[in-house]
């Protein structure tokens, strides 16, 4: 059914007199603004990031061979089952461009913003997940969703600027309520009635929108940008309400999950694994039920605070302090956490792959980008920071490859991911990391 707000209003109010402004709605347009989005369209394309802190162990995660016939290295063994839908990027480097390396921060922000940050918390540009969200995220209830498994809402790499940070939800229960609470419209529900309260709320937002020009005219340039971001959020809220007023198209893959119980959030590794598993499952259903198309997951924080119950030391401290065992080539205690991290990534892949959708699974209809902030945490190394791409992105990427960047900037990977997802970027990055050289090996 094609939705028409005027029809809905009349149906709802029995044709009674109402005065509501009826602007043409962005959400009825496709992302190019060239055509009305029709129901029964191809399955949406999704994008997710998956982050962990303190890297992997050099010599234990990089395959010997490049290309399709790569060997699965020891630290990546849990990902074996996904080899044909996983690409490994090694040898890509973050440059500091004379700004100094901020430990556990420069690497991730170089990967996500294309520029070395000026300092802790001071980025030069938006992280590219926000550009992807602006490109593909406009058709769902949430433009993007952010979660963290280590308990701290401040742990989020997704930001439009230094000050505009998309905070992470740490609690699976709260995340469930945000997704599937009273405001959720089940796409497979038999009947649908637009809620007059939602209609009223949406209409009322115009009282705020009407203040925009006056308010922006009163403040200086920097504050104007901040307040404009606020009004962007208002439009996003308006769009969420619009979506609640439409009868959603049925989605076969959407199965509303049960509500999780309250869990203990924190940095203790068993809690992290349990919360991450719940968050991953909820995120998969958020995608299947078209609540979002873009998400960001923090398995661990940048200075990996993961710790064992009863231990005096965190993963981060271990990476710096534990001697390297000559026989295995790793730091045994720190490696315990590396193994849990890689298993965590596997958990995320399994969660996405276990939702059947159309001719495949969610994982086939998405691109999942995993990355850390350094390669060898012991010395905060910015050379060869581990990055992975998983999923088939509706056939838009070639997968199952090991790409060796040979010392090229990390921005080549970010640019490629953006291009695959339809962000109109021909070059990306700043300073010595500016590049227009996509990783064409993975592009279809």
């Amino acid at each position, binding site marked *: 059914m094609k939705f028409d707000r005027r029809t809905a209003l009349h149906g709802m109010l029995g044709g009674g007199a109402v005065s509501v402004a009826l602007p043409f709605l962005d959400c009825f347009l496709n992302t190019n603004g060239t055509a009305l989005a029709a129901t029964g369209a191809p399955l949406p394309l999704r994008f997710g990031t998956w982050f962990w802190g303190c890297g992997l162990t050099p010599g234990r995660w990089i395959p010997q061979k490049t290309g399709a016939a790569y060997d699965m290295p020891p630290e990546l063994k849990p990902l074996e089952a996904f080899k044909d839908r996983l690409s490994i990027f090694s040898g890509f480097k973050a440059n500091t461009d004379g700004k100094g390396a901020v*430990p556990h921060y420069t690497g991730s922000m170089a990967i996500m913003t294309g520029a070395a940050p000026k300092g802790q918390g001071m980025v030069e540009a938006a992280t590219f997940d926000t550009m992807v969200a602006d490109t593909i995220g406009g058709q769902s209830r949430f433009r993007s969703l952010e979660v963290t498994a280590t308990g701290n809402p401040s742990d989020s790499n997704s930001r439009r600027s230094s000050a505009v940070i998309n905070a992470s939800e740490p609690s699976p229960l709260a995340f469930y309520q945000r997704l599937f609470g009273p405001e959720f419209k089940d796409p497979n529900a038999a009947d649908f009635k637009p809620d007059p309260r939602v209609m009223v709320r949406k209409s009322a937002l115009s009282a705020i929108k009407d203040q925009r020009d006056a308010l922006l005219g009163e403040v200086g340039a920097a504050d104007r940008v901040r307040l404009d971001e606020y009004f962007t959020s208002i439009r996003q809220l308006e769009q969420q309400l619009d979506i609640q007023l439409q009868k959603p198209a049925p989605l076969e893959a959407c199965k509303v999950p049960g509500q999780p119980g309250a869990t203990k959030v924190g940095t203790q590794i068993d809690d992290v694994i349990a919360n991450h598993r719940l968050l991953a499952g909820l995120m998969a259903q958020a995608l299947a039920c078209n609540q979002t198309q873009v998400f960001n997951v923090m398995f661990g924080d940048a200075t990996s*605070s993961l710790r064992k119950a009863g231990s005096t030391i965190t993963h981060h401290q271990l990476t710096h302090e534990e001697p390297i065992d000559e026989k295995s080539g790793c730091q045994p205690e720190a490696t315990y956490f590396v193994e849990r991290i890689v298993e965590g990534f596997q958990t995320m892949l399994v969660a996405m792959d276990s939702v059947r959708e159309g001719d495949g699974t969610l994982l086939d209809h998405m691109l999942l980008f995993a990355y850390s902030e350094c390669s060898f945490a012991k010395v905060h190394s910015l050379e060869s920071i581990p990055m992975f791409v998983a999923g088939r992105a509706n056939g838009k990427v070639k997968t199952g490859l090991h790409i060796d960047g040979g010392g090229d900037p990390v921005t080549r990977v970010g640019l490629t991911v953006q291009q695959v997802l339809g962000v109109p970027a021909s070059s990306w990055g700043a300073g010595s990391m500016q590049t227009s050289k996509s990783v064409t090996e993975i592009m279809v």
Partner: protein
Amino acid sequence: MKPHLRRSLAAACGVLTLLTLASCGDPAPQSSGGPATVRRVTKDQYVAIIGDVFGADIKIQGRFDPDVRESGLLAIGTAHVSVTPSSLEQYDSIARTIAAQVVDEHHRAQLFPCKPASPTAPDDGCAGQFLGEVGHQLYRRPLTGQELKAQVAVAHEAAGTLGSFYDGVATSLAIMLESPRFLFREETAEPDPDHPGTLRLTAFSKATRLSFFLWNTTPDDQLLAAAENGELNTESGLARQVDRMLASPRLKSGVRAFFTDMLGFDAMATLAKDPEVYPKFTPTLIGDAQEQTLRTLTDHLLTRNGDYRDVFTTRHTYLTQLLGAIYRVPVGTKGGWEAHDFPDGDPHAGIETEVSFLALHSHPGRSSSTLRGKAVREILLCQQVPTPPASVNFSIVQDTKNANLRTARDRLTAHRTQPTCAGCHKIIDPIGLSLENFDGLGGYRAQENGAPIDTSGDLDAVHFEGAAGLGQTLHDDPAATACLVNRLYGYGAGRAPVTGEAEWMKYLQARFAAQGYRLPDLMRTIVTSDAFYRISAPSKPDGTTQAATASPKEGKS
């Protein structure tokens, strides 16, 4: 300080206030002022405002986005953050639950100044009366005619659609609570007639800055009235309001909010300790630890009107039974607080020896001289410690099982022999090492791994012994009092002091010293000055300055 005593002191200075800016000393130097700010209200402020306007029994449920720390303060970060889609979603949800409570049958009788003609139909008169009164407090100024009209229209339409007057008003109120006019404290400037060529905050912006600085909440009716009738723009009128505000019990909330920010207590919410190493650690304990420090500070600085320098040496504090277990002090009061004086010679003296400071600046499973030393430098002395360089090998630092390096001092000394690390560690570790008698939770210990702990320390050129020595060194260090002045001013202004305020900051420090380092006096000096409200000309997008046009905020309905 007793109110009557404080008032008489104020009166003594007040006579002179009329004559010169600095009532009891040298005249204040010129100040450039700084840019006006647009600050996002914090979670604590939001909660306080809702309590003030609608009553403390209104429940606030939802998540607030974390604040961002800049130049040492979250208060300065609030002038740089925005509202993301997910955070607006939260504000929307919080606003609707508040509005629903405000209009419920229980609250409407107390909170509405009028009754609608019919509870099932719009009533623009009553809606306008309620929304106008509430909006005045929420927007910290009267609503403009246009604003009120828009809010009434929202209530009207919603009441019609939903068939309920109160649901209509709730819809409109929720919109007000998520409006940028409420969520952001937008400051506006106007030409200062007393100092031609300069700009000052408009009276309502002045009232707002004053109220959030001293009380951490929205201006009350009296302050708004003083802004509206021009009283706040006269020296005597301002002094009257300042007297009233400094004498109010709400000053304590303001001072607590300031130290919560300055001491970084926001990190307490995510502080974790290993339960097997520190079985006494619980969220309740750490909440008590934070409260202990805030009580120590407000008792010393407000109740006793004490010298700020003595917060580093004071032996007078407050304890609960949970804290007593860490300090090894018997606490008889069940479920409450009692005063305690640590005896002379006890290692506990000053807020830097309290659990809040020691636990916050430690690792989850052990103490950290480096983190503590860095915290003393950055938080208490306002000195920036550089971040560690890339490619550093930390192997030796805390290999706690090394039989030759049993104490933190041994391990750090070994680490400092690496030239790339030495530069920074030599200015932070010797401070923190003096606190090594306290473990990662703040409990006392005489030995580490069976070896006696040497707690001698250095801060710049001063050598001292133990925690008490550190406290005395901080007490005597002019950087500590200058740091407080700097932070307090930045906290009130919402930005770090600018170059054109350098002389003014020096003056503030001199006044602070001349007044015996009394915090309320320092606050008074700041809020009764012109400098605090002076605005440097900001550029608008069209290149004009803010004051060039009449402020719409001052428009009356």
